């Protein structure tokens, strides 16, 4: 899932500027699951805004709404009648959702309330961890199911750097060295020979370096 | 809670009594408050006048219909108001216009005297006696004797301690439970109780005394704690009551939620505080 962080309240206030009619818009997908932009978080942020403006003695109107998804046009379009009443839409979706809402409601101001951080997994209730960077050509079969691109600080493809010590990354002592994990997993599954195979230089064109990506599946198109 | 007439009248003489407080010991003139019953003692006092029997001018009289009307709480109130002594005169036993008012008064005052003596005020400042309508002479003598007695005791000084004690006595005597008991004790001694049985008189007296004593001590403790936290030993010292008699009062007050403990980690001597 896509994982994000709520922006600091101060930053959100700053971005809002003089706008006082705010539609706080949540998304019932990834950001709900990672506890950053679902209906509950929408409620919390809306409540914070109300409390703040109440305290400041200012007039305001804050509306809460949560869409099934902010990355599908049909869902976004369903709230068109609502949007007219508000100066800004404060989106709590990932970056994709924010943009798509902005596209749909040009020229209305759409402000992100969330910093989108990574594609990851739930380690335990309340703890998420990065697993994928969307490089566009997956090789985790070679690396014991552990992605060196996403999980090695340096995205090394052929073994650890000199900074790996005690199984931990030199960038951050609390982070496991991805290559330690890979070696452990390969050893466990008796596949250490794969470690010997040299990975060729990565072709980053499939990733971000090839510019914005688009995917088309002809058979599904209407 | 002095009601109606009694309150108004004690109030009226109060200002007078206050004045003399400033006079000091040197030219001490006792101020005495007298309650006289309408039918005997008051008539006796009038007779003293008709007969021109002379007696000291130190007493101020409040007429009541019967000595039975005297609420024990009037006495501490009078002392607090600045009087040096209180005199209650009624009909002779058997002559009460209301049959047994004087006997009830005697019971109440005996009990009150015990209380005043026990709490360090002294019983000598209160007298209850009988004067018939024909005893003008006796009235004058009683006033003379009591004035002399108070003169030798000296002025009653309302020190903070005495004030605390008297207020505690007054509060205790005004409580519903005690008023009921002081009123009911006589009946219990003379008649069957609610179970149709005769109560053991010693037990009734004991309960009455214990009830008032406990109430009084508890009220005094609450007053002590108004000025700040105290240990059990300090409270016992202030009460002038042994620790082992003080502790049960503290337990009772803690149980009623009226006092609590000062939060302190390291002290072996917990200090009690008044609850908010």
């Amino acid at each position, binding site marked *: 899932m896509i994982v994000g962080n709520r922006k600091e309240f101060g930053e959100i206030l700053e971005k809002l500027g003089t706008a006082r009619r705010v539609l706080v818009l949540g998304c019932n997908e990834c950001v709900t699951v990672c506890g950053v932009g679902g209906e509950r978080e929408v409620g919390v942020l809306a409540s914070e805004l109300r409390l703040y403006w109440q305290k400041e003695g200012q007039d305001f109107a804050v509306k809460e709404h*949560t869409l099934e998804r902010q990355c599908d046009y049909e869902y976004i379009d369903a709230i068109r009648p609502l949007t007219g009443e508000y100066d800004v839409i404060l989106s709590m979706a990932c970056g994709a959702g924010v943009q798509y809402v902005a596209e749909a409601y040009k020229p209305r101001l759409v402000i992100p309330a969330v910093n989108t951080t990574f594609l990851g997994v739930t380690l335990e209730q309340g703890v998420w961890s990065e697993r994928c960077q969307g490089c566009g050509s997956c090789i985790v079969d070679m690396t014991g199911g552990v992605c060196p691109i996403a999980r090695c600080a340096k995205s090394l493809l052929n073994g650890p750097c000199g900074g790996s010590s005690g199984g931990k990354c030199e960038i951050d002592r609390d982070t496991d060295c991805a290559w330690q994990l890979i070696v452990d997993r390969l050893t466990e599954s008796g596949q250490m020979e794969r470690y010997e195979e040299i990975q060729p230089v990565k072709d980053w064109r499939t990733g971000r370096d090839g510019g914005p990506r688009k995917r088309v599946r002809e058979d599904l198109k209407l | 809670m002095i009601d109606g007439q009694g309150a108004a009248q004690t109030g009226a003489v109060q200002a007078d009594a206050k004045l003399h407080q400033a006079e000091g010991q040197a030219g001490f003139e006792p101020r005495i408050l007298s309650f006289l019953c309408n039918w005997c003692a008051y008539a006796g006092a009038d007779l003293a006048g008709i007969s021109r029997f002379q007696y000291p001018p130190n007493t101020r009289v409040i007429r009541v219909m019967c000595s039975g009307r005297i609420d024990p709480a009037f006495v501490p109130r009078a002392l607090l108001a600045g009087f040096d002594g209180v005199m209650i005169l009624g009909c002779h036993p058997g002559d009460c216009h209301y049959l047994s008012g004087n006997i009830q008064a005697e019971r109440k005052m005996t009990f009150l005297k015990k209380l005043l003596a026990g709490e360090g005020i002294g019983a000598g400042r209160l007298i209850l006696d009988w004067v018939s309508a024909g005893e003008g002479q006796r009235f004058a003598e009683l006033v003379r004797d009591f004035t002399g007695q108070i003169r030798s005791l000296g002025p009653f000084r309302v020190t903070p301690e005495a004030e605390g004690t008297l207020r505690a006595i007054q509060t205790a005597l005004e409580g519903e439970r005690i008023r009921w008991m002081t009123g009911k004790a006589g009946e219990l001694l003379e008649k069957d109780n609610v179970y149709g049985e005769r109560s053991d008189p010693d037990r009734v007296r004991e309960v009455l005394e214990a009830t008032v004593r406990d109430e009084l001590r508890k009220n005094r403790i609450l007053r002590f704690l108004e000025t700040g936290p105290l240990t059990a030993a300090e409270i016992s010292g202030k009460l002038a009551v042994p620790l082992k008699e003080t502790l049960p009062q503290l337990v009772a007050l803690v149980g009623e939620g009226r006092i609590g403990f000062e939060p302190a980690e390291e002290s072996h001597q917990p200090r009690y505080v008044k609850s908010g």
Partner: protein
Amino acid sequence: MATVENEEVKGGQAKPVGAVLVVGGGIGGMQASLDLAESGFYVYLVDNAPTIGGVMSQLDKTFPTNDCAMCIMSPKLVGTGSHRNIRVITHAEVKEVAGDPGDFEATILRKARYIRPDKCTGCGECAKHCPVTIADSYNEGMSRRAAVYLRYPQAIPKVYLIDREACIGCGLCERVCLAGAVDYADEACQEKIAVGSVILAPGFEVFDAARRPEFGYGVYPNVITSLEFERILSATGPHRSHVLRPSDGTIPERIAFIQCVGSRDKKCGNDYCSSVCCMYSVKEAVIAKEHVPFIKPTIFYMDMRAYGKGFDAYYERAKADQGVRFVKSMVSRVRQQQGTGNLIVTYLDDQGKAAEEVFDLVVLSVGMTTSQAVRDTAARLGVRLNAYGFCETNPLAPLATSREGIYVCGAFQSPKDIPETVAQASGAAAAAAGGIAAGRGTLATKKEYPPETEVASAEEPRIGVFVCHCGINIGSVVNVPSVKEYAATLPNVVLADENLYTCSQDTQEKIKKAIQEHGLNRVIVASCSPRTHEPMFRETIRDAGLNKFLFEMANIRDQCSWVHMRQKPEATAKAKHLVRMAVANARLNRSLGETAVPVAQRALIIGGGVAGMTAALRLAGQGFAVYLVEKEELLGGNLRNIHRTIEGEDVQAFLTDLIDRVSAEPRIHVLTGSQVTEFGGVRGNFTTAVTTAPAMTAQKIQHGVTVVATGAEEERPEGFLYGEDPRVCTQQEFEGRLAAGGEEAAGLREVVMIQCVGSRNEKRPSCSRTCCATALKNALALKRLNPAATIRVLYRDVRSYGMLEPYYAQARREGVLFVRYEPEAPPVVAREGDSLTVSFAEPILQEQATVKPDLVVLSSATVPRENRELANLLKVPRTAEGFFLEAHAKLRPVDFASDGIYVAGSAHAPKLITESVSQAYAAVARACTILSKENLMVGGVVAVVDGERCAACLTCVRVCPYDVPVVNLRGEAEIDIVKCKGCGTCAAECPARAIDLMHYRGEQLEAKIGALVEG
């Protein structure tokens, strides 16, 4: 052979009476009553005291969990007091029980109370005014109470009474009682009741410490009993949990606990061990230190008997981490120091020399005894007592008394702690029900209600508000008429009224009438606490055809008038706010349905040992089909390795009989060589797959309850040359050899027994509980066969608790030598040439001793049978040592946290046969609370998911403490209302806000909060 099991009433006669008399309303009596009432019997619960609750109501905390005793007990109090099929008769005694099992007639004498229970509201005005004060027995005489009193604030029934001895008859209470409940003409009255069985649960009284004059109890003020100290520690105690010593009200620093006062004491005639004192002393020491960190507790003990589940860990923690000092020595006397009130304690130190030490406070750990009143009752009922005044029972049938149809549980049977009492109480309930199963449902009643009026959520609310004066309890502080007038102005309120006592019978009628006349569809009572009164008012509106969830309460007494007595205007304002909140909430209240789910009235029992077979027989005896699954080819479990009990009962004959009866019982389906391979469902409706060897045939069984009785076994010891030298064996092996014949025994010149092999160490911190008794049993058996044999028992603490203690004394008398060793210096078993040597530290001579025994017997640990997989299948937890973990260490000893699954026998923790039997019966009683019902009602306050909004994020799945939510095939969270307990944690955390808790919906709570600050 003892088949003292006398539950079955000999056939052929009329239906037995479907009611049970329970004598004693302590924790045991309450548990037995609740179990019986929940499984279709009517219960008369008679207590001598004016209230139920027993000694547990006086306790502060309970070991080993340090739970607040009152907190965990009060649901049972309320449950017992309000159960429609339990009649609580307090302040009464049983005069006589005539007749035969199944058809007894009991004579009950109710003493005069002088306060009418039907009128008393428990407001307490009488006690506030009563001029008499006397020592309060609830606080063990350390505080005072009035002559008219309630034993403790949470008492059930909450009805005052007059202590006739203390009362002087002044009449003030009658004058102040606005409810008119005082009745000086009240008289004792006798009543005859018909019952089918009787359970005796009268409990114990503590030993009179004055009988040990050398300790100075009653002479020195700072020598107190452990029960007095318990009260001192309690928040409702004399000093509100401040630890103050009696002589001068200071905080004692040095506190000595003296163990075994009135226990293990021949002089007093109490040869037995009271079983609980070691643990409660450790608890009191720990709690005292929690209250006041500078307190230094010292416990003088003979043997530390921490034999129960988790007890040793508690003891070790107290010793190592919590600064409690333990001195193994018996105190010889206590004297008072001149002037200070401190106490000089004389004892023998570890060198065997007399030592003296000064303490600020001495606590005597008094034992359990049977009171004279209970002895008298037993005599009247024709129930035999043993030499020590406890109820005589057979170890293989511990719940049956000497009189058929009368059963026993709790400390009256023998000294025991709370969980064992609770287990035995449930057990007694099963035994009592067993004999009268045919009478089930004949006297217990189910309430019939009129049909419910439909109240659609869209329908306009019509609210009636009833404001209570509660005599003067509310009215003297809160201006009730103005609250009433205010209520009338609130939206949707169509009726506002006031009552002197809203809880009185006539007011209930008035409310019902108002519902009809004004067409009310919501009712609010502004009075006292919903914790005590909501059930009653709900009943009232239900009688008038309204769903019970349409009732709402505003607590303007306990949380308003009583706590703001000196701020009358503010209290009135607050009362109005509370009513406004109630109205806001009531407007949103909805009818909630409860659904009936049919029960599969069959049981599955896993494990065919003594616990499993006993449970199977008892369940079958009550008319339920049972599937008994045993992994082995033969039934019997660990019982097959035991030959005699310490009391001398023939265990093998008992086992044979048990197996015969199980095999002959048509309702029991025995599946040997079988294992559970799949498990699913909920209470009332489980489905289990069982696979049977050798063909591995599988079958699915539908059942309503599950009993886990997988047992335990003796561990194969490590070290001590076990397995290397034939002269080293375990206790169980030794028992087998002794049973095989006396020849070997005759040749044994010297035997050494080593205790705690594999127990009480780092790997397994617990005590194995039964090994001391086994060692004593085998030592005594050997002495019988060969009196000349030298037997040395190397031990750490001899844990011969309860009625086992006399056997310890007997063993010493017969010359068995007991030598204590420290875990740091364990005995060493070695070979020297041909001979076997054991060397150990000899504490008296203070040197290393070596002996050359013919045989070394190891008291090896008791370990659970392999159960990990089963635990996973059933989703039930285990302890670190692999025993099954019950729902609550004190009050739910045979229940698992998942409803409908129970544990019995050694699968729970090591146990003697007698204890396993009690527990098996207990599991039966608990199981019957489900099996006896055709349907279970579910629903009400439960969480519901709005599938549309659910993001299937799994938050609810993870946060639910009971693992109820699951994500279903539609990808939505689903909460089974049968399992949901209604805490609302999921609703509070659902990131999509897709979950709501019925009756506490977010909308409702928000409305309440909104109403709080309006106006």
